[in-house]
C-alpha cells in the first residue's frame, strides 16, 4: 500500500457515565490510502461512528479520546490545537452525517450553509461562494438549483437534504470524506442514489472515503477495503472481494450469513447471530465475541487475540483456523 493519507494508531475513546467509564473504541488502527474507499462495518454500538467522529475531534464533551497518533498527511490530529483542527475540518476532511433531517441548520438558507466552508477556508466573497454553491448543488443533483439556493432546509426532501450535506462536505474539495451512515435514514430507492452519488464523486475527485455503515451491502457496493468492528475493536480487515469471498473471523461470517437472500428458499428462517453485543463497560480479558461464537473453545477465553495475517492484506483477530467456506 502506498503512503497512507490517514493513519490512526491505537485510537481509543471512552465515555464518562454515571456507572463508570465506558470504552466505546479500544485501541484501533486504521489506514486509508489517497483515493481509497474504506468501509467500517459493525452492528449498532460497536463504536464505528465514535471512531470516525474521533478522527476530527467531533465527539461530545463526555468523551475522552486517546491515540498514539492520528496522522493526516503530515499533520497529527491527535496533538493538534483547536485552530489546526478547525483548519482541517471542512477543508481537508469533509463529513456527511447520518440524519439529514436534523443535520442541516433550519434557520439558514441552504446556499449560506454550502457557501460557509468556502468563505471560511478559501476566503471567497459572498458572490463567489454563491456561484460555487450553485455549481455544487447541480453536481449533487438538486433540480432547479438557481431558485432553490435561497430556500431553507425544510423545503427539501430527505434525499435532497442528504445531497445538500454532501455538497457541503465536498465544497472545499477535501482529501478525505467521512460518511457516517449516510443512507441509514433514507428509504431504499433514495439510498441507492445517494451511494451512487458518493461513489461517483469519490472517483471523480480521487478522494479518499471512510464509509461507516452497518449494512454490508452498502459497503460492498462502494468500498475497496473493509474493516469489521466488534465491541470497540477491529476484528477483521481485508480488501472487499476477499473479505466477502473468504471471511476469516466468525463474526464476519455471522454478519454475512445474516444477510437475507432473495434467491433462497421461501420459508427458511433468517440466520441471526445469537446473543447480544457485549456491554462495553465489562473490560474484556479475552475474545469479546467468544460468548456468541459457535466455534469458541476453552483457549478463546484466556487471552485477547492479536491481529493475525491471513494473506497479504487480510488480517483478523481470531486464534482459530476455521475451514474455508464454512457456514458460521
Amino acid at each position, binding site marked *: 500500500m502506498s503512503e497512507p493519507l490517514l493513519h490512526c494508531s491505537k485510537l481509543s475513546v471512552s465515555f464518562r457515565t454515571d456507572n463508570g467509564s465506558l470504552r466505546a473504541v479500544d485501541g484501533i488502527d486504521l489506514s486509508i490510502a489517497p483515493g481509497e474507499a474504506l468501509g467500517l462495518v459493525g452492528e449498532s454500538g460497536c463504536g464505528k461512528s465514535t471512531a470516525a467522529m474521533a478522527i*476530527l475531534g467531533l465527539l461530545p464533551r463526555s468523551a475522552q479520546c486517546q491515540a498514539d497518533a492520528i496522522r493526516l498527511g503530515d499533520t497529527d490530529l491527535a496533538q493538534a490545537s483547536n485552530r489546526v483542527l*478547525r483548519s482541517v*475540518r*471542512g*477543508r481537508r476532511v469533509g463529513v456527511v452525517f447520518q440524519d439529514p433531517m*436534523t*443535520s442541516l*441548520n433550519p434557520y439558514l438558507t441552504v446556499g449560506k450553509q454550502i457557501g460557509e466552508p468556502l468563505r*471560511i477556508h478559501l476566503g471567497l466573497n459572498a458572490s463567489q461562494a454563491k456561484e460555487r454553491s450553485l455549481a455544487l448543488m447541480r453536481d449533487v443533483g438538486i433540480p432547479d438549483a438557481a431558485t432553490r439556493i435561497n430556500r431553507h432546509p425544510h423545503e427539501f426532501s430527505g434525499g435532497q437534504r442528504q445531497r445538500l450535506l454532501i455538497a457541503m*462536505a465536498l465544497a472545499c474539495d477535501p482529501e478525505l470524506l467521512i460518511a457516517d451512515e449516510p443512507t441509514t435514514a433514507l428509504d431504499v430507492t433514495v439510498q441507492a442514489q445517494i451511494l451512487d452519488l458518493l461513489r461517483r464523486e469519490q472517483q471523480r475527485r480521487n478522494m479518499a472515503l471512510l464509509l461507516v455503515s452497518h449494512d454490508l451491502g452498502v459497503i460492498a457496493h462502494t468500498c475497496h477495503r473493509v474493516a469489521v468492528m466488534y465491541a470497540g475493536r477491529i476484528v477483521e480487515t481485508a480488501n472487499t472481494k476477499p473479505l466477502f469471498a473468504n471471511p476469516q473471523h466468525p463474526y464476519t461470517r455471522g454478519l454475512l450469513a445474516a444477510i437475507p437472500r432473495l434467491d433462497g428458499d421461501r420459508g427458511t428462517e433468517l440466520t441471526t447471530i445469537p446473543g447480544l453485543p457485549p456491554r462495553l463497560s465489562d473490560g474484556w480479558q479475552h475474545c469479546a465475541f467468544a460468548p456468541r461464537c459457535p466455534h469458541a473453545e476453552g483457549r478463546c477465553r484466556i487471552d485477547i487475540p492479536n491481529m493475525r495475517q491471513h494473506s497479504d492484506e487480510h488480517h483478523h483477530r481470531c486464534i482459530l483456523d476455521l475451514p474455508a467456506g464454512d457456514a458460521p
Partner: protein
Amino acid sequence: MGRYLLKRLIQAPIVLFLIVTCSFVLVRLAPGGPFDAERKVPPEVEAALNEQYHLDESIPMQYGRFLLDLAQGDLGPAIKYPGRSVNAIIADRLPPTLLLGGYALALAVLIGVTVGVIGARLYNTVFDHASMVFALLGISIPMFVVGPLLLLAFQTQWRLVSPPGEYGPSFAYLSLAALCLAAPFAARIARLCRAGMLEVVNQDFARTARAKGVPEWRIVTVHCLRGALTPVVSFLGPAVASVLTGSLVVESIFLLKGLGWEFVFSAINRDYTLVIGTVIVYSSLLIIANLIVDLCYGLLDPRVRYD
C-alpha cells in the same frame, strides 16, 4: 403573512373596544367618586360639579357621550385637574414612561442575552454558576427593594447620581431607574437564553457546523443564536405587560412623573376620564407589543407559517 397582519390589525381595535368598555363600567361601579374627600363638599357644589362633567346622567348616556368624543380623538377633561384635558396629560406623561420602559427592555434583552449566551458557552464554570445565582436573585428580589437600595448606594452614599431637577432626570439617574426595572427581566431572559442555547448547541446541525470548520463564536452567533432566542421572544410578550406595571412602581420610587404615576393616582382619585385614557394607552401598547412579538417568531424561524 399579509393576510395574517391584516387579520391582527382588524382584531386589535375590537379587543381595545372591549377593554375600554369594561373599564368604563367597572370604574363607575367602584365605590366612591371623584368628589369624595375627607371634608365633604357641600351638596349643591357637588351637584354642580356632577352636572359639569355629566356624571348626573345614566351610565349608558355617559358611555354614548364618551364614545362620541372618543371618535373625535377627545378623551375629555381630566376631572381632578381643573382646566387640563386627558389628552394633554397623556402627551405630557407618556414620553418619560415610554423612555423608561423602552430603555429597561433594551437593557434587559442586552444583559440577559449576553449573560445567557456566555453562561451556556462556559457551561458548568464559575461564571456560569455565579451568573445563575445572580439571575435567581434578580428574579426573587422585588423592585421596591432593589430600587431604594440602588438609590441608597448611588445617590446617598456614593453621590454618583443626583435626583431629578428642574429639567427632569439626568441620563445617569434614568439609567439607574431603568436598571432597577430591567433587573428581574434580564434575569429571566438570561436563564431562558442559557437553557435555549444549551439545547441548540447540542443539536446535530451545530455538529455539522463544527465539522465544516466554523469557528466556535460563529457557531454560537450565526448558527445557534436564533434558535436560542425563541424562548426569549415568547417571554417578551408578557414581559412588556410586566414592564408597564413594573414602571408604576419604579416611577414612584424614583419620582419620575410618568404615566404609571398618573395611572395609579387617577384610579385612587376615581378620576374617571383619566383612568380610561391611561387604560387606552396601556392596552394599545400591549396589543402592539404582542403583535410585534408574534411577527418576530417568523423573522427568527423560517419554518413558522402564519395562517
